């Protein structure tokens, strides 16, 4: 019997009795179905499969090996343990996204420890753990290190709660580690001593990323580690590693596909310069380049030799970069698809992007000086226009600017109608079109009207309810919407709740949306992952009403000191099969 993944109907009929239990109406035995399903990876597909019929549900749950939980509170460890028995890889996401911007109090939750306890009991063959916006303590890391002999990959994105002691446990105990990937960590000094804890015979590492940890590491230990891990393809060091140290690492790992440099600021002798230049030239497989702290135009040419195959360049922390040298650098990167840059390159730099990067699909422009309102530099609508003209494949943009016009955005989306992610942040809240002084409604109206595939939208500037009328009406594929300082009345939010059939995540802050708006979505929230509303006009009464009407929703209010008792200043609503949180801290009211 030779099951083909795509055509289960063609499998042999149920006449053979050596194939195990067979259901009367099923065209093929369970084992066949399970074999077929073992090829299905996507959790969305598996979700659909599990809904077809009971035996498919069972076959699916027995064969699922990768678990994806988009909201750790939507389900409980117990429920998961009962349903799935053979999990090897887990992805867990915790806090709402606004926690990245310090809008959530500390100790809000999303501690992975209870999950680890369950995994240790039920999934002893766990190989991968990927966490996003969760808290993992040293205790958790130690439990992880000691409970899973096959453990291979640890990825922590925007996580907190740990110190180098936890990482030491991982390095010391996990013999088969292939990946240690720590991104955007929100811890204080973690310390770098853990890098020295890998055993001398340990050589399986393929991915090592500690770029966001700020502890000094012992370079000799790092060098030895890199030299013996022959399969290393991703190396992202932190700022403590100097240029000449980087050169020594590159000599050991010329086959890197992704490199995050350390500090790019160093006085180099001519010989050192040459050595480093050569080392970079030898990196012929480099696709992703990041780091480049304190990179100045003086040393950028060192990189030229490594840029031919570069597809993703992250210069977002190279905030001393100016447009001239940046343009020269870009000329060496013809294959760029993804570019992250600081706004110090200014509109001129973005013009160079438009000229040099015809294949560009994603652009992110971060502000070098986000809090200085006197700072008149940075990028404007002109830079964005220039990129849109030269890069027709552009579909993902994150753009921080201090001024924008409706007309510019209309033109931009005409040039690039394929936008899937349009995140525009005009940094002064509620700022109108700077030329016409009108609201920015027409800009976002143009985005949703012209870009049918829009999946993610972040709006900013002065916006009335009209923006939300447009979004509700036209953005049929929209899944994530972020709104700040916008709207005129409840009607705005109602338009969203009544439109946008595919909406999954809605995050709102500082908008005039009240209880009526909140309640207008009560039928929709169960089809969404979550709703966040802060500093709006929602009251406790409204929240309680929503909670009462929707038993499958968790409605949580985060209480703050000094707040008015009747107001609900931070509201987090999400669907859950696990009921209200059991671990809520005292300032989180679960209604």
């Amino acid at each position, binding site marked *: 019997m030779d099951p083909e993944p795509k055509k289960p109907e063609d499998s042999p009929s149920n006449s053979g009795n050596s194939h195990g239990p067979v259901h009367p109406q099923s065209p093929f035995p369970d084992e066949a179905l399970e074999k077929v399903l073992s090829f299905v990876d996507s959790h969305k597909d598996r979700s659909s499969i599990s809904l077809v019929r009971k035996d498919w549900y069972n076959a699916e749950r027995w064969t699922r090996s990768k678990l994806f939980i988009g909201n750790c509170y939507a389900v409980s460890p117990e429920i998961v343990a009962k349903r799935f028995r053979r999990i090897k890889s887990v992805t867990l996401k915790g806090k709402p996204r606004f926690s990245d911007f310090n809008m959530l109090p500390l100790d809000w939750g999303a501690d992975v420890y209870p999950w680890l306890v369950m995994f240790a009991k039920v999934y002893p063959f766990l190989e991968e753990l990927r966490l996003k916006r969760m808290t993992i303590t040293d205790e958790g890391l130690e439990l992880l290190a000691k409970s899973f002999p096959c453990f291979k990959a640890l990825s922590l994105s925007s996580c907190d709660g740990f110190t180098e002691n936890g990482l030491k446990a991982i390095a010391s105990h996990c013999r088969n580690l292939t990946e240690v990937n720590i991104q955007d960590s929100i811890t204080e000094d973690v310390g770098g001593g853990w890098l020295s804890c890998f055993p001398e015979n340990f050589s399986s590492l393929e991915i090592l990323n500690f770029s966001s940890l700020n502890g000094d590491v012992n370079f000799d230990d790092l060098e030895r580690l890199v030299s013996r891990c022959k399969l290393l393809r991703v190396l992202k060091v932190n700022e403590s590693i100097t240029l000449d140290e980087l050169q020594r690492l590159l000599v050991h790992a010329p086959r890197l596909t992704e490199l995050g440099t350390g500090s790019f600021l160093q006085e180099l002798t001519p010989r050192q310069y040459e050595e480093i230049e050569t080392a970079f030239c030898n990196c012929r497989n480099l696709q992703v380049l990041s780091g480049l702290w304190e990179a100045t135009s003086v040393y950028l040419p060192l990189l030229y030799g490594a840029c031919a195959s570069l597809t993703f360049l992250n210069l977002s922390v190279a*905030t001393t970069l100016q447009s001239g040298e940046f343009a020269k650098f870009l000329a060496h990167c013809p294959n760029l698809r993804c570019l992250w840059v600081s706004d110090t390159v200014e509109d001129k730099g973005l013009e160079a992007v438009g000229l040099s990067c015809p294949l560009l699909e994603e652009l992110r422009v971060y502000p070098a000086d986000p809090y200085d309102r006197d700072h008149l530099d940075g990028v404007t609508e002109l830079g964005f226009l220039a990129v849109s003209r030269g890069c027709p494949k552009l579909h993902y943009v994150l753009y921080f600017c201090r001024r924008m016009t409706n007309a510019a955005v209309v033109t931009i989306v005409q040039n690039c109608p394929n936008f899937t992610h349009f995140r525009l942040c005009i940094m002064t809240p509620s700022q109108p079109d700077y030329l016409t002084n009108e609201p920015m409604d027409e800009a976002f109206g143009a985005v949703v009207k012209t870009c049918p595939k829009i999946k993610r939208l972040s709006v900013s500037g002065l916006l009335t309810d009209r923006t939300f009328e447009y979004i509700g009406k036209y953005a049929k594929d929209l899944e994530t919407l972020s709104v700040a300082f916008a709207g005129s009345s409840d009607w705005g939010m109602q338009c969203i709740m009544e439109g946008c059939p595919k909406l999954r995540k809605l995050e709102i802050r500082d908008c005039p949306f009240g209880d009526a708006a909140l309640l207008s979505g009560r039928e929709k929230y169960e089809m969404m992952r979550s709703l966040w509303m802060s500093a709006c006009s929602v009251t406790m009464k409204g929240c309680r009403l929503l909670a009462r009407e929707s038993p499958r929703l968790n409605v949580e209010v985060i209480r703050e000191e000094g707040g008015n008792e009747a107001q609900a200043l931070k509201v987090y609503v999400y669907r859950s099969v696990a009921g209200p949180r059991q671990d809520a801290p005292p300032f989180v009211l679960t209604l």
Partner: protein
Amino acid sequence: MSIPQEHDYIGLSEPLSSEKISYKMAAAAAEGVTPSLNVEKIGVFNLKETELRLGLPGSEAPDRKGGIGIGVSLFGKELKGESMCVKSFVSGAKRGFSDAINGAGKWGLSINGGSAAGLGENGGSNVKEEIPALKPVEERKNGASITAPASKAQVVGWPPIRSFRKNTLATNTPKKDDAAGKPGPGCLYVKVSMDGAPYLRKIDLKTYCSYPEISAALEKMFSCFTIGQCGQGLAAKEHLSESHLMDLLHGSEYVLTYEDKDGDWMLVGDVPWEMFTDSCRRLRIMKGADAIGLAPRTMQKCKSQN
């Protein structure tokens, strides 16, 4: 052409009274009413009552012009007027915490209100440029009507930049007066951490020439965190209760310390400036409660945390 609208979201500009929520201004704008700054709202800054200070021995922070101030200079007003540091410096000797603590008297920080320059982040930039900017605001603060945006009150979580990114930006903000924009080899970056703050900052010691400068700069840099703590409760722009403010003031006295080349934690201000910049490896704004009265073990604790 409209003036960029300033909205004081923190709400500390009004003395202990509730404030309309800012979006109503936007709503007004949307309805076609030209938004004008609500002068009454921004009118009175209670700057003196709620000020974050990081004063140093023998110094008065340059922008303090006397006045009521609940806050106390970090290293004690008692030392005001004395020539800085020299008399307490014995060559070759280092003062540990207990000596410095016993000598200096009461320290504390108060919380900064809507100070104009107070809440911006300006890692590494030249403090000298900022001091003149403070003066115009202080002149205005006594109730004179304001036509230009004066409040630089920082909104929590806006613009939406992640914490880790703020760390790196603190180092790399280009100096406006440096045409090449390149930090030279003579720069001396040290990390500054503050107990309870979600991220570190880095500053270039070479851009400062004296303790008052660095103290003013750090004050500005970190005031947003103490705001954050009481800002959690102010997110609704509700009034700040007196008892709440008092709790913050008395509960959160901060001490500026640094780790020197030998790994010892010292109080900032004890040694001549040049010696300080030579030996300082990192800075830490520590809770006074941790430092005072725990001197020998504090040293221990600091060491083990590294």
